[in-house]
């Protein structure tokens, strides 16, 4: 049976300051539509400041691709090719 990996988040509290919420998720492949939809939902629901994904199994990412998971709000991103 295929393994499943749970999403994982760290939340920075602090009433007056900025919340520093980070999501970390081993996606085991990010090319498929369903997986991207899942990550997009996770981001919309949790409203993180930073998202760290592992195992995208992709060699190239671009602005267009990032928008499919982050939405239209501006963002920066960086990645390491999966090879």
């Amino acid at each position, binding site marked *: *049976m*295929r*393994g*499943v*990996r*749970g*999403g*994982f*988040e*760290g*939340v*920075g*509290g*602090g009433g007056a*300051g*900025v*919340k*520093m919420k*980070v999501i*970390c998720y*081993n996606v085991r492949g990010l090319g498929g539509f369903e997986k991207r939809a899942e990550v997009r939902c996770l981001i919309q629901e949790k409203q993180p*400041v*930073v998202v*760290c*994904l*592992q*195992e995208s199994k992709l060699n190239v990412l671009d602005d267009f691709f990032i928008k499919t998971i982050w939405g239209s709000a501006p963002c*920066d*991103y*960086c*990645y*390491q090719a999966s090879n």
Partner: protein
Amino acid sequence: MVELWCTFSLRHVLVTKGRVIATGQEFIIANVYAPCDTAMKHDLWNRIMNFILNIGDVNFCICGDFNSVRSETERKGRSVVFRQLDTNNFNNFIDGILLIDLPLCGRMFTWYRGDGISMSRLDRFLLSTKWCDSWPNCIQVAC
């Protein structure tokens, strides 16, 4: 909310420097995807450790899939091969650079094979003291 201005890739880890625009607070996040091999993992811990020892007191967060557990209780399964050396290396790494491993809320494990038997805690967040001072009341949640 935040901007990133510097990233660099080391083997099995992607390091990003950023800043919270509203407050000017700077941070470094290292996104780890550790290999399975014990020696390669040990090498990765040493490289991250050297990096951290050279940057000093900063808001630092190492997160990702460490492919390691900190104790036997973090892994369950039918035929569990518990690698003590792996665990010792991982613990020495965390303790050696005084990283904070907050208690996990939500669930006990972060990886499930799907057979209802095998599960482990392979993913986590490790934080510097300064990170916990800058953003107090941090919690670590498996969801």
